[in-house]
């Protein structure tokens, strides 16, 4: 498999971040392929596996689509009125994967502002991705928070 260039991948990651920041969440969910997963390990066990340790997010494709749908509803009280969300994407690496996917690793810093409170979520994102014509699809996105706990933020009601 020929690995995509970092430039190609950066374009894709910037596009993904823009979808989240502009609340085009249904479009974001469609970046994942049919077996797509969105995962977030617990803060006390960042290297865990979701079958064994209790993750904070353990979404299959259906649940991540539903997460997007839920977040767009007025009755998603934790995001009504919506947060202002700003992703900064950096430190992008492209690596060989297994089977049909390759691996992308990047750092993100996500700022979120709501109800006069400003929260920061730094994270390392590990993707399994596939080439799909002239773009890419996500098989798995795992967000490893660079946070010891969620005490400062209180909750995680936006997409990282």
């Amino acid at each position, binding site marked *: 498999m020929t690995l995509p260039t970092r430039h190609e991948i950066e374009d894709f990651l910037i596009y993904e971040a823009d979808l989240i920041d502009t609340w085009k969440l249904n479009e974001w969910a469609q970046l994942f392929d049919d077996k797509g997963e969105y995962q977030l390990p617990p803060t*006390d066990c960042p290297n865990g596996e979701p079958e064994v340790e209790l993750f904070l997010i353990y979404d299959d494709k259906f649940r991540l689509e539903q997460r997007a749908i839920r977040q767009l509803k007025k009755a998603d009280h934790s995001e009504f009125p919506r947060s202002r969300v700003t992703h900064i994407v950096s430190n992008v690496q492209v690596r060989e994967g297994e089977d049909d996917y390759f691996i992308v690793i990047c750092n993100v810093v996500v700022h979120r502002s709501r109800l006069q409170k400003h929260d920061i979520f730094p994270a390392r994102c590990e993707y399994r991705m596939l080439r799909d014509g002239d773009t890419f699809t996500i098989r798995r996105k795992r967000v490893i928070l660079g946070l010891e706990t969620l005490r400062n933020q209180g909750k995680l009601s936006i997409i990282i």
Partner: protein
Amino acid sequence: MNGGLGFETIRDDQEEGRFRVHRGAFTRDDVLDLERKQIFDRCWLYLGHVSEVSKKGDFITRKVGGRPLIFLRDRNGKLQVHFNACPHRGALVCREPSGRRRKSFMCPYHGWVFSDEGNLIETPGPDAYPETFNRDGSLNLQPVPKFDEFRGFVFVNYDAGAESLENYLDGACEILDLVASQGADGMEIQKGMQEYSVSANWKLLQENSADAYHAGITHSTYFDYIGARDKLIDNFDNTLSFGGVRNLGHGHAVSESLGVMPWGRPYARWIPSFGEDAKAEMAVIADEILKREGKTKGEMIVKGDRNTLIFPNLVINDIMAVTVRTFYPLRPDYMEVNAWSLAPINESPTSRERRNRNFVEFLGPAGFATPDDVEMLLQCQMGYSNADFSPWNDISRGMTRDVVMKSDEKQMRTFWRQWDKMLKETHVGDA
């Protein structure tokens, strides 16, 4: 009155069927000061679970009632709970959240070393101290006045004269026993602790954790999600006018129902999204429990959904998974929350996977429901700034009904009556 607070905290009018709580109870510093003294320093507070220190030498550090503690299993297999503070100059002697195979703790400041049993075993440069040094044990790590265990749940009490844990737990013993009986080999706290916070008064979370009345409204998007997934929701009464609430004594209460809630349960309530493959295994799990515990108790375990409040700040919710949740106020308008998943020891990998997926569909700071609870508590706290002109919370729901339902507010009244009683109690030695 009211421990000298000078305002009416609750108004309990049984004749009229009205129960009100003054919003000052959520906002005032003097209330929190009194709660610390009269409630948190007198009640049994949840520390942790025996499974967290299952082997000799295992330890965890944790704040309970605002005080940093070390909870460990010593070299002889005995549980120990020490205050995490060096008797020399006060630094924490243990800074890690957890660890294994530890026989001693060295204070990082001046190098005093304490055994797992808490004894001072080394002081660098001992010749500077007299021979009588620490003969009275006052320079050992200090043990908590009381700790005890019930069915694996370990509690501490900062009042040396407190009644026994089992007396204190009262009717909640039955609920803890039901949870502890799920696994044939016992239960364990899973790795993956949820450490978050809510900028609201701690009592709001105790109220919210067993409040069935809010479920259909606050969590409509959660029910939309499981409805879209399993298509089992059409006949579900989202006002939750079923089940019941029991006063378990000592301010503890449970809101419960049997086999009605539309979510899956990892033992025995199969839902389509668990997949056909899961059906057979779940039937075996249920059979084992029914055989081991008998039909009546067995059905309570496999079919029951229970939200249990253990006074003052422990929640055991046995719903789409089992969560253990405790919290403590740092300020009237801010609490720290710790929550865990409790699961059967030696659970099969497939069942554990179902449990983990099921747990976070609702629960936790990134679930489909908990963030909305956090939001509601925050909104309440903001509203209480109007307390001078809009002073009362109403929690009268179901007060005049003969048969109390799950969505009534009896569990909250049970909490508040105990809270008010303890706040007003005078103790020997009080000025």
